């Protein structure tokens, strides 16, 4: 009878010792003079986006540390799982961690909103490579506004939405449009701007709208496709992420749909073509993102060598955001306040040769840009900027 309890105590003791040991080992490591953090989905359903993004950050950092052997900058990975809920767990700690002087991120809009109160209280500057929800930089919407500490490189959805709508109906005589979103915060938001643009455009008939399962726990889109066919649509605009978009377009084409398929930056990912195969051919895409490969073969090859995989989505924006921070650190801004001032005042050169400076609300000054793309021959080809 004693034996049982002794065993139990023993087991608990072993577990505790193991935890202590593991955590001691886990906390060991090189220490850096300063840290920047990347915040995005590193686990969970959207982790692919996060992994692609952090590769861009790591590349910029590796280049910097290579050039500055004496002032090494460390990277802390803040995993918010791409959700506001995840962000509200990790943001308080990130805010309190004084060694972090700036953040690349948050990657997603919902996670950004959940993080803002903590970073504002801690005066922690952020540059997001991919959060495009309009209200993040709109001081009128208090609940979502991230200023003055929040900055972002991509254009907002209110710019992308109309661009996407116009791109989709370009050159079609009597467009009948059906819009679909994936129930994500991003998809619903973008879809709203697409729809309002369509309604305001004369000659466009809106056949209807539907949503598909965002959690991707079912891949049967037949009902939505039936609706598209019932409405005789010749343009389908999809607002959402690429994984579902790929499955969706595949079934749409398999069902015999011959019209236009257009989608936004959520679908702007090589994975879209890998997953959708030939069904992706002809798809029109928009993104306020640039293609890393366009920066040249040399740097692309170097990236692949350093990181171990080719640059993916938002690699350019992450690279730029990281470089802005490193630039500031290089100029002697080594506190949160100093970096905040530096970001707001400075003007930086982006990878694609563009100039980046931020306005008072955190958007890139100037009009920003939306690139349009088309899928041909199994690759995403740029068709230039949409004016």
């Amino acid at each position, binding site marked *: 009878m004693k034996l049982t309890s002794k065993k139990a105590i023993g087991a608990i003791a072993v577990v505790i010792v193991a935890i202590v040991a593991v955590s001691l080992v886990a906390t060991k490591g090189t220490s850096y003079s300063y840290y920047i953090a990347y915040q995005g989905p590193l*686990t*969970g*359903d959207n*982790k*692919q986006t996060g*992994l692609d993004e952090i590769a861009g950050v790591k590349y910029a950092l590796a280049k910097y540390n290579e050039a500055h052997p004496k002032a090494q900058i460390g990277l802390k990975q803040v995993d918010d799982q791409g959700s506001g809920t995840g962000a509200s767990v990790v943001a308080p700690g990130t805010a309190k961690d004084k060694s972090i002087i700036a953040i690349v991120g948050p990657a997603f809009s919902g996670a950004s909103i959940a993080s803002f109160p903590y970073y504002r209280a801690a005066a922690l500057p952020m540059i997001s490579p991919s959060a495009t929800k309009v209200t993040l930089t709109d001081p009128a919407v208090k609940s979502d506004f991230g200023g003055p500490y929040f900055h972002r490189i991509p254009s907002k959805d209110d710019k992308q939405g109309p661009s996407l709508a116009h791109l989709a109906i370009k050159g079609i005589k009597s467009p009948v449009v059906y819009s679909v979103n994936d*129930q994500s915060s991003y998809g619903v938001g973008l879809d709203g701007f697409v729809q309002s643009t369509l309604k305001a455009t004369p000659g466009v008939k809106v056949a209807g709208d*539907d*949503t*598909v*399962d965002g*959690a*991707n*726990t*079912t*891949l*049967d*889109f*037949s*009902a*939505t496709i*039936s*609706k598209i*066919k*019932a*409405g005789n649509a010749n343009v389908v605009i999809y607002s959402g992420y690429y*994984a*579902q978009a*790929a*499955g969706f377009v*595949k*079934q749409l084409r*398999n*069902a*015999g749909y011959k019209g236009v398929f257009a989608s936004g930056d959520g679908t702007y990912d090589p*994975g879209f073509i*890998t*997953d*959708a*195969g*030939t069904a992706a051919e002809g798809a029109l895409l928009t993104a306020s993102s640039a293609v890393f490969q366009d920066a040249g073969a040399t740097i692309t090859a170097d990236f692949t060598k350093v990181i171990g995989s080719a640059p993916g989505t938002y690699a350019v924006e992450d690279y730029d955001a990281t470089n802005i921070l490193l630039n500031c650190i290089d100029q002697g801004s080594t506190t949160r306040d100093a970096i905040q001032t530096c970001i707001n005042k400075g003007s930086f050169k982006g990878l694609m040769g563009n100039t980046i400076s931020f306005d008072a609300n955190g958007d890139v000054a100037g009009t920003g840009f939306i690139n349009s793309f088309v899928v041909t021959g*199994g690759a995403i080809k740029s068709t230039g900027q949409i004016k």
Partner: protein
Amino acid sequence: MHTLISQFWQLTFSGAVQGFIYVLISLGYTMVYGVLRMINFANSEIFMVGTFATVVITRDLLGHPANGPDLHGATLIFTMLLCLLGSMLVSGLVAMLVELLAYRRLRSLGTNRLAPLISAIGMSIILSESVSLLTEGRAVPDPEVLHKSSLATILGANIRIDQLLVVIVAPIMFFSLQRFVNHTRLGKGIRAVSMNEETAKLMGININRVISITFLIGGLMTGASAFFFETVYEATKFNIGFNIGIAAFTAAVLGGIGNIRGAFVGGLALGLLETYASAVLGSQWKAITVFIVLIVVLLFRPNGLFGEAVQQTRV
């Protein structure tokens, strides 16, 4: 509503395809329920594993690239047969593994009903999370083996070859299973155990073996369903089983869980209902439709359409 009327036959056809996929999965629930009087919670993940088996066989084993050329003739038939048998086998074996790890020990311990239920939930989490870690949580596309050519348009419904295949082969598999259970020795053993375990034991039937085989058969059917699913939808993901599993379970309950014929009617009815409902209400309410059907059936006709009492009093 407009869609429902104008696309009625198209919806009916795709609903039937979906329905037959449910039929085969719900056999996995119904067979196990028959012998154990327990829900095999992990059946949805057995399905998910089956879809990945199909992907692995076509992509890695046979080396068909995602966007490769279309297959024809003997190669096509060989590939499809191999995928079908492979995913059936993998699902069947995983089902036996689930029985071994999640149910057997607890059955011999004779603990309360809660324990095997929780351990089966645990197994289903282990399966889906392992796959999630292996695939980095991504959707995985399945190379197109069978080209989706349209055969005919009947009453405005586009009849595609892959969907037609499901509508023809799934019932054949179903009826073979029914024959197997009704007419073979093994099938009779299963029926004996499901009627009365004690008596079956007295008759010299090896209960553990019969239960194990029941899981295997349930798994085989679920695996076949996974193959059909892949043939039609050509993609999978670690969490694909969740909603489909609940839907198939609902189908089993709708027809009367434990009743093989019930699974057929229930699966088909649910597939149609779900497709009609998402055409009328919007696809986002599809999952809710299934849950509401489940709750309503359990409340008003807990024995399902074909009986087998759910709330048997065991006095």
